[in-house]
């Protein structure tokens, strides 16, 4: 009765979100007196896979097949279901990122496993199998009891503190029939360098207060200094100042980084819905009445065009000395 964790590979490397999922699975497995088996699909070397031991996996099943580097959720789901059967796993864990959103629901339907999508915290098994998750777009949490024998937890990115436990996992070849992809991946258009918003621990975000796309240089500078991802409010992506994938909020991406810095964003309820789970929120706005200050931990009332260059200087010095 092991816990199975699905590992997402990107160019042969384990994604950070999958390390988080492994650590989560290990913490649950420990409390349940069970162990973690990881399933990795696609090209990766054994040393990379064995490193999952550091996050608590004892065994890695590896299906080394180049077809799997082109993502088709239907194929991945079938293979996870095969691994669940082979391992007799009762709990499956994965990240609730883009891939996880594609796979977890399919797997639930395929193996009739109840799921909590975007789980936030470990299951409480004192009375059933109760898992917390954010709902109402950041305006509340719900606790859901999974009543089926098999269970799927896709965990909210950046919601679990990863601690390395040390150790290496054994890597075993996993064999299963791989059906043909029904989806052809033609091309990817990914940001060069930088940190994807959904994986970022620090986020610098700006809104209409910046007046125009030509003023984002100082925002990108700050992100560069901090090693942060950049985000924006909805109108900013609507008018095309910034790409859609930076739009955070109720109708964009919901994030929960350790630090969210909001520059020239008013703090409309729909914007807050996507960011108010951030651990620390900093607001820089020239209007002291901006609603965002009510949702912030720290604030500077001032003109972004003066404050941001000063802040970048101070951050640069801080980084140089720490």
């Amino acid at each position: 009765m092991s816990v199975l964790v699905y590992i997402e590979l990107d160019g042969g490397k384990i994604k950070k979100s999958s390390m988080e999922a492994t650590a989560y699975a290990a913490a649950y497995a420990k409390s349940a007196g069970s162990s973690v088996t990881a399933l990795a699909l696609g090209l990766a070397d054994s040393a990379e896979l064995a490193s999952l031991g550091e996050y608590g996996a004892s065994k890695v099943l590896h299906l080394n097949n180049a077809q799997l580097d082109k993502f088709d959720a239907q194929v991945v789901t079938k293979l996870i279901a095969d691994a669940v059967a082979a391992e007799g796993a009762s709990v499956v864990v994965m990240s609730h990122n883009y891939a996880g959103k594609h796979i977890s629901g399919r797997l639930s339907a395929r193996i009739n496993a109840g799921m909590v999508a975007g789980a936030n915290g470990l299951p409480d098994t004192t009375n059933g199998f109760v898992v917390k998750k954010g709902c109402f777009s950041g305006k509340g949490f719900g606790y859901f009891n999974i009543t089926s024998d098999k269970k799927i937890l896709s965990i909210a990115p950046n919601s679990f503190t990863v601690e390395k436990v040390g150790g290496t996992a054994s890597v075993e070849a996993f064999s299963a029939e791989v059906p043909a992809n029904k989806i052809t991946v033609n091309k990817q258009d990914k940001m060069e360098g930088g940190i994807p918003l959904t994986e970022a621990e620090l986020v610098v975000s700006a809104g209409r207060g910046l007046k125009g796309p030509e003023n984002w240089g100082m925002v990108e500078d700050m992100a560069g200094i901090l090693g942060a991802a950049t985000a924006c409010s909805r109108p900013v992506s609507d008018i095309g100042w910034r790409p859609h994938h930076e739009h955070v909020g109720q109708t964009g991406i919901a994030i929960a980084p350790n630090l969210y810095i909001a520059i020239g964003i008013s703090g409309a309820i729909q914007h807050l819905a996507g960011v108010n789970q951030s651990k620390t929120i900093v607001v820089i706005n020239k209007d002291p009445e901006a609603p965002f200050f009510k949702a912030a931990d720290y604030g500077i009332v001032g003109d972004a065009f003066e404050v941001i260059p000063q802040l970048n200087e101070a951050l640069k010095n801080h980084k140089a000395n720490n």
Partner: protein
Amino acid sequence: MNVLVCISKVPDTTSKIQFTDGNSKFDENGVTWIMNPTDEWYALVRGVEIKEAAGGKVTVINVGDSSNDQIIRKALAIGADAAVRIDANPTDAYFVAGQIAEYAKDKNFDIIITGKETIDYNSGVVASMIAEFLDLPHVSVAEKLELNGNSATITREIEGGSEEVSLETPFVLGANKGLAEQRIPNMRGIMMARKKPIDVIPAYDSVNALTATVQYEPPKPREAVKLVGSAQELVDLLHNEAKAI
């Protein structure tokens, strides 16, 4: 093209979210209900556009009680041709997707579209569940769809960018911003919607929910904001107090 669009009813984005009965229930008092934004703006409108371009029919489907008829009427006013309501409490995503799949399985839909995620339970998995129940491919968080006969080219959001994929109908799509532009129903649409039937059917016994709501919890209130006078002061607080940098 025979298109099915799945729509959900959710609290308006400006609603104050509160819980009652010892936080065991969502408090519906004073809540205004709307069609889930990505269902309405992108899934439905793109479905209607497909019909306008290629001919065919758009059916909307909802799982819920008769209080959902208002959003169904709105969907008909925006341009859906027919509506189905499965008369049951939408307990969880598995139940909703399973009910919709049971309805759809012998109806030969070419494309089934949902919004990328509802703004109440934020799970974003209904499209993928329907697809698996029906053994169809699916693409979610789709921001662009081009159709050429039965071949589709779809751009979907991925970590830090997008990916272009192609596939053949039938398939399931989870709709995001970019897929279509919001449409406001006009008078003619509203009048016509009144004449369109809503087919109310009972729930399928074969599908049951696999989760139960135990309890809700409001988010922890933040302490009052600390306003600081200088950039240096902010950096010091972020480092020493918040330990965020």
